[in-house]
């Protein structure tokens, strides 16, 4: 028996080693390929790795605040680099919102609206994709594949397509992020629905409730906390996604950041990065706190 165990162990070890060798080979090949097709070679560019730090050091520490709040700079020489007040967004009289805060708000609104749209449609679709609620196999199959396509379709293509129709602006970004959210949330939601307790549903069915009543009174109350928790998780992801989509033409802070980096405006870049960093931490913390309140610790367990 020990011999058999040893044999099994050896086979297992052999597979592990083979797997690791395969992985190492794939990694080496990938690295070589990446280096070969890159514009600059890794070794040549390594000394320049921290060049960007130089692009981010402002002329004095207060420049950061001036850039962030659009105050006048003592270094102002007529160039755009130090012209902070130019970006002010006047709301009413002399009262203004600093440019970057306004852009950040734009990005946040893109994310929130897109998540709401994703939530609404994901909510409507998920019950049709759940095995325990939809008897028709074809309907289930169709809805699931539809959501899969929405999820896998590259966001950048949706954004690019609507950019061609609407010209530059945040609406293509909203549509792109929303479409992806519908697919992603729909998938998570129908998995939650499939794990729901079917006893309330049975009770409603016995009392003669129709499909909508069964779903609305039997299933929705149980799954709502989880739905909201996933909604908040998606919101975190969407804030990041809308920043990236912004950088490729969707407006908001992403675009400002890309322009600022490419023009080498150090104080402005640093201000945007700081703002983005703080916002993302705030959104994450807020969502973590709310999720904890709604579903307890379960929200932090991993599970796609």
């Amino acid at each position: 028996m020990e011999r058999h165990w040893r044999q099994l162990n050896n086979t297992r070890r052999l597979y592990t080693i083979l797997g690791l060798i395969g992985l190492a080979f794939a990694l080496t090949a990938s690295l070589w390929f990446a280096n070969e097709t890159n514009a600059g070679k890794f070794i040549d560019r390594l000394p320049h790795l921290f060049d960007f730090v130089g692009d981010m050091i402002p002329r004095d520490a207060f420049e950061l605040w001036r850039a962030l709040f659009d105050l006048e700079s003592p270094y102002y020489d007529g160039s755009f680099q130090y012209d902070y007040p130019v970006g002010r967004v006047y709301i009413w009289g002399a009262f203004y919102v600093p440019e970057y805060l306004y852009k950040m708000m734009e990005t946040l609104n893109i994310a929130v609206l897109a998540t709401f749209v994703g939530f609404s449609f994901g909510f409507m679709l998920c019950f049709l994709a759940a095995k325990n609620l939809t008897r028709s196999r074809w309907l289930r199959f169709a809805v699931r594949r539809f959501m899969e396509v929405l999820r896998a379709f590259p966001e950048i293509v949706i954004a690019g397509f609507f950019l061609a129709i609407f010209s530059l602006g945040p609406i293509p970004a909203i549509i792109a992020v929303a479409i992806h959210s519908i697919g992603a949330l729909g998938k998570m939601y129908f998995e939650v629905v499939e794990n729901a307790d079917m006893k309330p549903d049975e009770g409603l069915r016995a009392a003669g409730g129709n499909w909508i009543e069964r779903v609305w009174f039997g299933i929705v109350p149980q799954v709502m906390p989880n739905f909201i928790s996933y909604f908040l998780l998606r919101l975190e992801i969407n804030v990041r996604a809308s920043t990236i989509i912004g950088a490729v033409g969707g407006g908001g802070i992403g675009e400002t950041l890309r322009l600022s980096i490419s023009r080498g405006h150090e104080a402005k870049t640093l201000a945007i990065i700081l703002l983005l960093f703080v916002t993302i931490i705030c959104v994450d913390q807020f969502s973590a706190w709310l999720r904890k309140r709604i579903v307890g610790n379960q929200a932090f367990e991993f599970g796609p």
Partner: protein
Amino acid sequence: MTTLAAAQIDDIERRHPDVFHQPLVKRFAAPLGMICLALYTIYVWWFFSIGTVVANGNWNLAGNYLADWVSYEVRPDIEYESGDIEIKFPRFSPLGDDPHPDWIETRTGSVTVAADAPRNDPSKAASDGSFMSPASSATRTGDGEFSDMSSNSSATSTEIAVKKNVFEPQSVTETRNGITSAIVMYRGGTRLEVAADEVSVTRGGETLVLRIDRTNENVTPQGELPRWAVQKGEGLKVFTYFGFAGRAEVKWNEVKVYRRFLGWENFWFDTNSPFWGKSSPQVVALALSGERVDLDRANIAVMWDNIVNNAEWQHGDVWIKLLQTIVMAFVGTLFAVLIAFPLSFVAARNVTPNRFLNQVLKRVFDFLRSVDMLIWALFFTRAFGPGPLAGISAIFFTDAGTFGKLYSETLENIDDKQREGVRSVGASPAAVQRFGVVPQVLPVFISQALYFWESNTRSATIIGAVGAGGIGLKLWEAMRTNADWENVAYMVSLILVVVFVFDNISNALRSRLTGDT
């Protein structure tokens, strides 16, 4: 059904006070939420002025762009400024050089044109389906035949007097053999008949006749314009739309024809390839046996080279860019796992009992995670130049933070009994981790890594567009020209295939690891 007596109702109410006496907030949570949502939607509607933007969108372009995904247009111009009809195809037309498509019919006859007007070679636009004179007679026969305008009694079907240039000595014209009319046939019975002074368009039983006045440079429709034709002002050019089949613009000097065909044109071979225009059995026959197209190489090698370097579809470049995207996601995720694995042991409270070290590492993870992938991508593009190295680094830095956080949280939630067991037999601290902790967490770690690998394949597409390598930039460039939507469709289908394949691989591996199903 039994009815409940009042006493019973009271009894139930007493037993479940939490159901019958909910706080106000809880009772009105749903309507309140809906009202908030509605208010927010109104605010955002105003903030982004969604209404105006949507109303100002180029919606008819949208239809064309969508149609471009699965079809292509051929755009010949039928020019008649001189009086002689000439059919011109743009350079790089999908039909190749000097095409004679069978959906354009021409009729030849003698035409009268201004003497100094450019002489057109009618064979250029002749089509095989037409009843034109043989190719040998296609050369000009009316050479040097001058006729007076007033005494023009020759059998021309179209009488043309070109008076575009007023300084030109009047009525010096020339009659020669040329195209007298051209008929463009669209799908679904739509026809466009072009003669130098009259263009008639037939769609669905309706016929629109447009008189062309080249002297005053205007176009006049005869009778009412049908639903599918638009003229912006009197005498200006007329747009006619035939749905998916295409459209046409009738101007005083030319008709711009847009005829749409379903499919991806020249997908395998571009028009410069010797294999272009051959049917698939012919191509197969050439590949296997048959005369060498290029004496130095086998046909199949030439074929492969032609496909990879197809100028229109750029297969080779697209494949390399797609591979870059895959590599970016793979290497970035793998490195992030490799670095986060040991660090998470240090960051976990229960494994490393050093509060300071735990906190420092956890804050580092938070920092890496909270700096957006976009920022990392932009900076590494600056450091390494555009290409996959920047993408790898961006994914690596973001995911190292995410994995560090997830892994250390997993480690903090492990079952302590196994560790105690290993320790109680006197194992070294390293052996305790290896045999007491790793077997518990490894499946979870790997399944998380696989999940992120798959989702990174998607995000690698997007960060590519800011210069971090991969297919993103190529997609972006194809979309920016607004003319290459079929290439976009091609790349999107490749991406979808890759994502689905990876999705299934990672799902299969994960379900084997976690042991369910």
